[in-house]
């Protein structure tokens, strides 16, 4: 799963709407190592939702400040969210040294999102995603 999370996770998520459709799926499908405009800002905004608000809604305004669809993110979409943090963390490993610490911020949110997913009863892909996060953390901290 580590090489291509989207392959397994996108069909599992089923029909996606809101930011999962406009951001998560395209982000995961791209599978490239480069950042595109808005990627980092989107992931940082999602970090705030997960780490501070501990709630993620189905959709947000383009600046991520207001919930556009105030319904909780369905459980089957959470693995996508975790994978996006992990892909973001992987991409951040190629950033210049002074920007690279954002990798650990995304990893941190991946662990938190996994906790929230499990607390809500989510099981599918959780162990694999956690293993991916552990491996990435080990490599990043040793680097």
């Amino acid at each position: 799963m580590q090489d291509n999370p989207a392959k397994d996770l996108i069909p599992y998520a089923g029909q996606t709407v809101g930011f999962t459709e406009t951001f998560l799926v395209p982000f995961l499908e791209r599978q490239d190592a480069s950042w595109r405009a808005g990627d980092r800002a989107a992931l940082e905004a999602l970090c705030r939702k997960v780490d501070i608000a501990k709630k993620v809604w189905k959709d947000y305004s383009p600046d991520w400040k207001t919930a556009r669809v105030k319904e909780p993110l369905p459980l089957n979409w959470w693995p996508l969210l975790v994978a996006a943090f992990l892909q973001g963390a992987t991409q951040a490993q190629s950033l210049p040294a002074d920007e690279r610490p954002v990798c650990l911020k995304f990893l941190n949110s991946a662990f938190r999102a996994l906790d929230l997913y499990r607390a809500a009863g989510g099981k599918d892909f959780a162990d694999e995603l956690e293993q991916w996060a552990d491996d990435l953390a080990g490599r990043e901290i040793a680097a």
Partner: protein
Amino acid sequence: MKTIPLTVLVHDGPMARAYLAALRYHGFKPERIIHLIYENHPATGKPVGRLLPKAMREGYQRKSQEASFFHWPRQLKKTHGKLVAAVSDWTAEVTGFSKEVFEAVLGEERLENFAETTETLKITNLKDARLQKAVEKIAPAVVLFTGGGIVPADLLNIPSLRVLHVHPGHLPEVRGSDGLLWSVLTRGRPGMSCFYMAPGIDTGDLIEAIDFPVMALNLPEQSLEDPQGFYRVLYSFCDPILRASLFGRIATNNETFVAIPSEGQDLNQGVTFHFMHEKLRARVYKKMLEREQ
């Protein structure tokens, strides 16, 4: 003891006491302490001593607050003695502070001993109009903010008032929560930064940012068996003392507190971190135990 033109806004606890003890260590006494007494319990948010007669209520609120804010350092000293000693030893080594500074974080000394004058102020939170009014009254002034959380913009915008704060991370690189841990994780060592507060998280004009030596705690691996205890020891006996060490140095170099040189931060630089997940914390603690080869 030399009186310095500084008001310390005391959110009582290890942090405030460390600052005050560090100033005393350097031979300084702030001209004023404003001791904040919270009418609501910090953990439950419920009014404290609501049913008591007014005359007894304030004393009870003060006692209750003291018991709550100093609970962990006092408790940890009894239950995690070796851990506290190892963390304090390393912190003493890098700051040069005497044991009196470390004892101060237990909050057993009267607050009044640390400043020329001490006034208490009952508030519900930092947005309380009584706090705004009290601070407006002392302006022009330089105030040291010793608590956590967000200081309201209205307070920071009071004309001729400068609010100082020490953040436990090297700015502009490490902003946000758990700065001590994120500094060790991303830069390999603790860092501290003193700045003039501005609306926004750790974004004000920077006075000084420093890195401390790599942490090498003299402890066995078994010390990590109680990660929550480890976390609390760091935040009781290391983080406050390192902050106070930087502030003591700044006070020594700028005794008048007038126009301390500062520089705007590049807000595009650095990362704003959130509270660290236990899994990453565990890796940080391991790093803290690693000996330099």
